[in-house]
């Protein structure tokens, strides 16, 4: 995982509500055994025409969309399937953070494990970001992870929630597996005290 401290970048908005992981990366692209190339098919069915040419009306195909590092999305982003291919595709495209008013649980978990920041803001801030973008597509904002804050162009800081553990892991760029492994002794004690509830090799 890459370290993340602060990010100053432009945004792109896909304000549709309830964007599910089937839209983020359609199931036909899940037939892979690695993570490479998924970014090319991010939002595939919105991004490309039936003949495979880019749909010029879709925001990711605009000049601004191509260089944005922050995705501004509608409420309940990432609902549906548990496919980690969704955050892989988002990161593969080049996004480092997604801002919405809420995220689906599994998507949020998956993203935090990878260092993709799911930033939940209040409705008002969300609307403000949308209108800033509308006025000036090159608007830059800053995300400060240490302070858990989004800094708007007018200097206003909006804080966002993130659990302390994930925050520390992302700031340091360390994989969460390491923490689990550091508890090997406790896992052994647990197993010694609890009879197996199931045996698939039985």
């Amino acid at each position: 995982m890459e370290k993340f401290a602060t990010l100053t970048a432009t945004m792109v908005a896909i304000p549709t509500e309830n964007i599910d992981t089937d839209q983020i990366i359609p199931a036909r692209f899940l037939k892979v055994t690695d993570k490479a190339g998924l970014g090319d098919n991010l939002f595939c069915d919105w991004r490309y025409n039936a003949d495979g040419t880019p749909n010029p009306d879709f925001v990711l195909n605009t000049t601004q969309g191509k260089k944005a590092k922050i995705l501004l999305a509608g409420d309940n982003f990432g609902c549906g399937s548990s496919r980690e291919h969704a955050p892989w595709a988002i990161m593969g495209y080049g996004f480092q953070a997604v801002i919405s008013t809420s995220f689906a649980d599994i998507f949020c978990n998956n993203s935090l494990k990878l260092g993709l920041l799911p930033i939940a803001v209040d409705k008002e801030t969300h609307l403000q970001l949308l209108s800033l973008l509308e006025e000036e597509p090159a608007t830059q904002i800053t995300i400060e992870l240490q302070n858990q804050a989004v800094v708007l162009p007018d200097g206003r800081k909006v804080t966002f929630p993130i659990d302390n553990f994930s925050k520390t892991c992302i700031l340091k760029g360390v994989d969460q597996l390491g923490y689990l492994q550091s508890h090997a002794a406790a896992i052994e004690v647990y197993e010694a005290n609890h009879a197996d509830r199931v045996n698939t090799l039985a």
Partner: protein
Amino acid sequence: MSTNEHPKTLFEKIWNQHIVVAEPNNPTVLYIDLHLVHEVTSPQAFTGLREKGLKVRHPDKTMATMDHGIPTTPLDIPISDELVIKQINQLEKNCQEFGIPLHGLTSAYRGIVHVIGPELGLTQPGMTVVCGDSHTSTHGAFGTLAFGIGTSEVEHVLATQCLLQTKPKTYAVRVEGTLSLGVSAKDIILNLISRIGIGGGTGHVFEYMGSTIRGLSMEERMTVCNMSIEGGARAGMIAPDETTFEYIKERPLAPKGEAWNAAVEAWRKLPTDDGAVFDQEITIDANTLEPMITYGTNPGMGMKITDTIPDPDSIKEVSERQTLVKALQYMGLRPGQPLLGQPIDVVFLGSCTNSRISDLRVAANLIKGRKVANTVRFMVVPGSQQVKLQAEAEGLDKIFKEAGAEWREAGCSMCIAMNGDQLQPGQYAVSTSNRNFEGRQGKGGRTFLASPLTATATAIVGKIADVRTMF
């Protein structure tokens, strides 16, 4: 429960029993009893293990199958999709290398991962069950804490048999009363989601309770729990009772003899204590339920089958209104339009929501002596090879075939359209699966979610039909 302990919910009891480490400010290290693995969400996790030089800690608590990408055509027809072949080979290789039992293509126990876990007797009350698949919530029907995880977490569980979790909140879903003829478990869950919305359960675990739930069979309970994720919940669960024990008893991997008695005794202590408090509650009156159908592009856009499609102009909230406008555009439907009588191209009876033997029985019962409309393709895809064998032993396959339906091999099939079973752009389908997202059943395909009864009635009429007029 001793008097000095506060009353606990089913969820809390299972959660507490699985805490390995709970440090303040850090997520809980939770022990996982059963880890189910399939070909699509696991390859990168095994790669991670290899790169780090790690073993699978408990192959004996892990079980793999292939279901998402495999064809549902007869087994002697070779698979043509190179990518699917690669994923299948990779899973075989991974299972062999790490010692994980695998129900592969030729196994008589192969099937959709959430169908075979219960079928084998692996899913048992009081357990924690995970899988790299959001519909792991299905297993909650047995009084387990079961939820979907991502591939990074698959790797965590493979390596440590544990997961990092923050404690979710609890949400009681009470369903009281008697279901009318033609109304089924699927209609209960579609009704719930249409009321709370697809984000309504976010951050929560549902516990379904009440007289209606107690009266459901295990297979019906699985249908309800299956779609908990469609309400945004992490998991859905139902307290174990005699119905549960009866289902598990004598299954291949269920406890036997003395171990069985001890297990049942422990399982009886799991149900939520009187007076336990939930963070949220909702009550559904089963007496008033009618067959449900979805009209839009998420499972929350559902209505009674006799209703008309809502008008976006009646929605005050801008983004919500736009979402509906966009959905109706995709679906090619108009506000105020009824769905009864809507012509349909494909009917899909299958998926981990509704492909178990009882689903096939009710469908066969309805279609017996009738024919599939000649404008409709009716696909019947059993959830597992065991379901298929059982159905064939009962002659259900013949009933379907005589009526003009396709009888196929087990798998996820057109629920996710990864294996070639898919809608053509613009086609309309009534599907017993769980997701009507844009393109879910094939690029440009348009899905109405409904129960097996509604789906079968529609296959016969060729248009969306009210099964209650057909008994």
